């Protein structure tokens, strides 16, 4: 009986679990957030992080990203529903959420422990080069980042090529 339950759970997780993160499916989000930087999927940070970030858009990592109240509220709503802690069926969302301590509220995706661990072996020169510039430029190396797929197979670092651990 125990075995049967285990088998059922494992098949359920295989059936419902998704790789990567949920792709962005909000036009306003792509327009407002994606005009300055890669439109990071809401499933890359938990709700508490998004709320903290959205409370200070006037100084958004050194840039003024202020929004009209209407758009601001719509986007906060979208982020809350789709944040990583609400999308635990997606592998990357789950891992990002689980790596963050309950005492921390990182507002940078690049400061999430799981993210740091995954990118720790990359030499600095590959990041600082002109084609990439910063670690937050997901799509520079992750060719399928737009689709929410961050698998190793889809990595292609500019002036270097494929990445193998």
């Amino acid at each position, binding site marked *: 009986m125990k075995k049967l339950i285990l088998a059922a759970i494992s098949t359920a997780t295989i059936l419902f679990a998704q790789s990567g993160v949920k792709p962005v499916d909000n036009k306003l989000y792509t327009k407002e957030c994606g005009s300055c930087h890669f439109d990071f999927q809401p499933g890359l940070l938990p709700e508490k992080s998004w709320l903290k970030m959205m409370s200070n858009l006037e100084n958004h990592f050194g840039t*003024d990203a202020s929004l009209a109240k209407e758009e601001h509220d719509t986007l906060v709503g979208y982020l809350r529903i789709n944040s990583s802690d609400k999308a635990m069926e997606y592998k990357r969302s789950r891992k990002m959420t689980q790596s963050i301590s309950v005492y921390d509220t990182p507002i940078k995706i690049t400061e999430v422990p799981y993210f740091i661990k995954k990118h720790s072996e990359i030499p600095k020169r590959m990041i600082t080069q002109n084609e990439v510039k910063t670690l937050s430029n997901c799509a520079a190396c992750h060719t399928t980042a737009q689709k929410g797929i961050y698998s190793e197979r889809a990595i292609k670092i500019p002036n270097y090529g494929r990445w193998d651990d």
Partner: protein
Amino acid sequence: MPELIKMIIFMTMNEKVSSMSNRLFILSPLYYKNNYLPLYLDFAILYFNLNEKCKEFVKRCIILFYKILLNFQYRNLKEVKMKRIILMSSLLFLSANAVEFNADMKNYIQSLKVEAVKENPNFKDFSIKNGEQIFTSSHIGKKGVKISCTSCHNTDLSTVGKNHFTNKEIDPLSPNTNSKRLVDVKDVKKWLKRNFNDVYNRVGTAQEKGDVLYYINSK
């Protein structure tokens, strides 16, 4: 008008009316202009002295007369309005000197002008040249780094830009190349606020905003 003249001739030829020919004057536009009120009284007397056939004819003529008169006045009004519109738009054309802004944007520019006058009573119009200076000069921005608008938007506004900090591509800013630019006032306001803060570390004045909009629009 010939109908009116015809009517007057007809009436003066009529025996009964000829005795009161001086009263026919009331139907002339001159009379209408000078003595508006007695017109009705005088006309009533004249009218009741006419025979049936005449009455019918006069009635028709009067209706026609007023129709013409009203039409004339209406046209006059329209002409005045048109003249005003032409004058205003030609002024706008002269000042914009480039692609015409849409109605919403024109209103926004107008409100900026009103604001600019408040800032500086000697304000005349926005200038493309000042706008270029604002757009191309470098300043210590919000991030503490020396940047200019051209750091992200390039000096050639018809080319695809690149965010200086994130590498994200930016569609051309020139309205001639990218028809989505300078169309949505809400969007324009948003970016003016953000980008003045980013490059100048403060919000722009109405004069500066207008100048820079003129400059972008001329590209």
